[in-house]
C-alpha cells in the first residue's frame, strides 16, 4: 500500500506506481471534486495543491508525491467550503456548468497565497485553466474581491488563504 497525505489525513491506496495522482484521488480515495478534462496538463480541471503549490494532477504520478508532502484538493480547501475565494465565487455567481471550477478555485487559492494583491497580469499568468462556458471575467472579479476582502479585513493572509 502506498501512502499519501491528503487534506490533512494519511490515506492508503493500492494503485500502480504510474497512476496519475488525479485518478488515485478520484478512484482510490473517492475525492471526485478534482476533475479529468484533458489528461495532458492543458486544461487545469485537475489542479490540486502539493505543499501549497498548484499542480496539474493528471500528469503527476502518484508515486512521485512523497509521504511527507501535503496534498490539498477542493474538498480540503476549507472545512465548510467557506474559503474567502469560495465565498467570493458564490457572491459573484461565477460557475456556469461548474466542471472546471474546482481547478479554477485551486489555481486562484495558490495565486492569492503567493500574491495576495494580484494584478491583472498576475491573474492572467496564473489562471491558465480552460473554461468553455466562459466564466473568465467573473473568475477575475471574484479573485479581486477576495483579495480586497483579505486586505480590508486586515486578515492574516497566509492563515486565511492557506489550505487547511
Amino acid at each position: 500500500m502506498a501512502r499519501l497525505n491528503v487534506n490533512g489525513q494519511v490515506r492508503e491506496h493500492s494503485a500502480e506506481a504510474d497512476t496519475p495522482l488525479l485518478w488515485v484521488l478520484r478512484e482510490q480515495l473517492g475525492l471526485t471534486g478534482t476533475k479529468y478534462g484533458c489528461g495532458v496538463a492543458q486544461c487545469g480541471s485537475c489542479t490540486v495543491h502539493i505543499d501549497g503549490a498548484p499542480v496539474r494532477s493528471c500528469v503527476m504520478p502518484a508515486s512521485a508525491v512523497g509521504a511527507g508532502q501535503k496534498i490539498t484538493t477542493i474538498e480540503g480547501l476549507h472545512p465548510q467550503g467557506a474559503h474567502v475565494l469560495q465565498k467570493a465565487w458564490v457572491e459573484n455567481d461565477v460557475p456556469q456548468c461548474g466542471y472546471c471550477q474546482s481547478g479554477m478555485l485551486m489555481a486562484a487559492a495558490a495565486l492569492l497565497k503567493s500574491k495576495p494583491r494580484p494584478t491583472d497580469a498576475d491573474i492572467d499568468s496564473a489562471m491558465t485553466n480552460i473554461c468553455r462556458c466562459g466564466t473568465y471575467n467573473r473568475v477575475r472579479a471574484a479573485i479581486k474581491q477576495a483579495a480586497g476582502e483579505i486586505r480590508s479585513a486586515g486578515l492574516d493572509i497566509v492563515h486565511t488563504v492557506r489550505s487547511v
Partner: protein
Amino acid sequence: MATPLNRREFIGTTLAGTAAAGSLVFGFPTSAAAQGAAPEVNAWVVVQADEKIIIRIARSEMGQGTLTGLAQLVAEELECDWARVTTEYPTPGQNLARKRVWGNYSTGGSRGIRESQEYVRKGGAAARMMLVQAAADGWNVPSAECSAVSGFIMHGASGRRTSYGKVAQAASRLQAPTEVALKDPMQWKLVGKRMARLDTVDKTNGKQVYGADLKLPGLLNASIRACPVFGGKVRGFDAAKVTAMPGVKKVVKVGDNAVAVVADTWWRAHKAVSALPIDWDLGPNAAVQQSAINATNKAGLDAEQAAVGNSNGDAKQALAGAARKVEAVYSYPHQNHATMEPMNATAKWTPERCEVWTPTQNGEAALAAAAEAAGLPPAQCEVYKIHLGGGFGRRGAVHDWVRQAVAIAKEMPGTPVKLLWSREEDMTHGLYHPITQCKMSAGLDAQGNVTALHMRISGQSILASIFPQNVRDGKDPVVFQGLNNGGGEAMLGYTFPHLLIDHAMRNPHVPPGFWRGVNLNQNTIYMECFIDEIAHATGKDPLALRRELMRNHPKHLAVLNAVAERARWGQPAPDVNGQKVFRGLSQTHGFGSYVAACAEVSVSKDGALKVHRIVAATDPGYAVNPQQIEAQVEGSFVYGLSAALFGECTVKDGAIEQKNFDTYPVLKMADMPKVETIVMGSGGFWGGVGEPTISVAAPAVLNAIFAATGKRIRELPLKNQSLKA
C-alpha cells in the same frame, strides 16, 4: 399519407402510449421528493410540510442557468418564498408514463425558457390556486376572499392565515383548475430580477456530482476506442494482450466500430484499451483529405443547383446589370464542442430492465437511444439526468455515447458500468460544427447604393445527417439561420432591392452536429463582414450603411444603435498602452433575440491581436434574469472568440487531426476582453440568450481588425492568418 415526424415527436407519440403510469421514481442524485413523502400539488410543484418548495425542471442545466430561470417563472406564479425553493429533474421515463406532463425535455436552440415559459408559469399558478382553495375549504370561505403571498395564504376578512406546507396535502387532492390566469408582467416580483443561481454552492466545493463522478455499488469502469476514421470498422483485436493487465474484467466489441475495456477503475480500463492491438478496417473514407472537402465546397459556390432560403426581386439579373460589383469568398471550419466533461454514461442492464445515468440535453432522446440499444421496450428503461459539465449541443440530438454504454453493460448483466470517453476520443469522435464556404456578391449603382445581394452558401447540412426527414427537396431550412425573411426566430435585418440567398448542399463524411450558435455563427460572419466590405468599397461609414439598409428592421437597429452609442462609435477610441484602438460592429437576430456587438481591438506591428473590450446588447423580449443573461453574453464571447481565434478541426486520411487542447487551443483568461452587456428587453416576446451573441463575436472583431490593419480576414480561424503590417 401521414406526415413524417421528427425524432422528438416520434419518441413522444410512441413511448407515451406504451409506458405504464406509475408513481414518481427519482434516480440518484436528484431525489428531493423521495426523501420527503410529500405528494405533489401538481406536476411542477411539491410543497413539503417543512415549507420546502420543490420545483420540477424538465430541461437540463448545463451552465446556461435554465434551472434558475425556469424556477423563477414557476415561483413567480406560485407566490412562494424563493429562499425555500429547490429543484429536481423528473425522469424522462416518468414523463412518458404521464403522457408528457412536463412537455419537451430537449434543451437546445436556446429554447429552455422561451419554449416552456407559458406552461411552467401556468403550472405555478395552478398550484397556487389549489393551495389557496385548500386553505379556503379549511376555513369554509370562498377562495376568492383569500390571497397568497410568499408561501402564506390569508383570509382578509377574518385575518386568518396559514402556510403552503400546512395545506399542501389537502391541495394535492383537489382537481386542477381549468382556467389559469397569468400575472401581467408589470406585477412580476422574481422574473426580471437579478436572482442568484440555485446551483452555485455545490459547484464551488467539489460536491456537485457530474456523470463522470457517479458512484454506484459494484460499479465498473470502461474506456473506449472507436475507429479513428468515420465510417471505419473493427476487423479484429487481440484481447489476450490486455486481459492480464491490472483490474481488467472484460474486453468488449461495441457496435461494429469500437472496442471497450471494462476494469475496476477507469484509469486501468483506459491503460488497457490504449495498449489493446486493434485491427481497423478504415474503409473508403481513409482516403479523404481536408483539401478535398475544401475543394468540394468551393465548387459549390458556383454550382447551378441550389436551394433558395430567401429572395426578393431578381438578384442575378440585377447583379448582371450593376454599375459595379463587390465580391468576396469566406469559409468557416469544422469544430469540436469540447465540453469540459467528456462524454460519459453509466448503464445497468438486465434482461428485464435498463437504467442509464447520464448528462444529456434531451432526457427523452437519451431514453429512446437507451431502449433501442438495450433491446427493451422504453417502459422497461429509465434515464436519470445529471447536471452537464458543458453541453453546447453535443449532448442533445445524438446519444452515441449512451448507445455505447448500454451495449457494454449488456455484456455484463446486472453490473453497472460507467463509460467515460478520454479527451482524445471526445475530440476525434465529435459531431462537428458544419463546414461551409460562402460567396457574397453585391451589385452597386453609380451612386454606390446596394441594388442587389447574392449570398451563396456551399457546404454541410446538419439536418441532412441528423434529421434527414426535415430536409425537403434538397433544402435544409436551418442553414439559413439569421437570413430568413421575417419570422420570430432568426431573420435578416437588412432590406435589399434584389436579394438571393441560396445553399448548395455538400456533405463530407465528417458527422455534423448542432454546435452552440449553430448556423447563425458563420452566417453572421459572412453577412456582417461583407456589409463592412461594401461600406469600405463605397466609402461609407459601417454604421451609417447599416442604418440605411436596416430601416425596415427597427428592433435589429435598436440593439445596434445601443452598442454604437455606448462604445461612442464615430469618436476615436482612447489608446491602450500606447497602441491605437479600432472598432468593429456586428448585429443579428437569432434564437428569437436581437443582438449586437462593438469590439475594440489593437494590432501590434508584429501582428499581435488584442481584443480590449466588447460592448454587447441583447433584446430577448422578456429578460428573466438579467445577471444570468450577462453571464451568457460573456460566455458567448468566450465561445465565439475561441472559434474565431483558434477553432479548427481538420481531416487527414479521413480522421480528425486535433486530439486534445494542445492542438485544439481555446480562449483563456489572458485573451478575454472586458465585456459590457446591455440587457434591453423590450417585452412582448420571449427570446433565447444562450446562443445568439456567439455569432456577433467574430464579425465585430474581424471588422475591427480591418479598421486597424486594412486586412480583410475571410478564412477562419485567425491563428492561421498573419496580421503583421
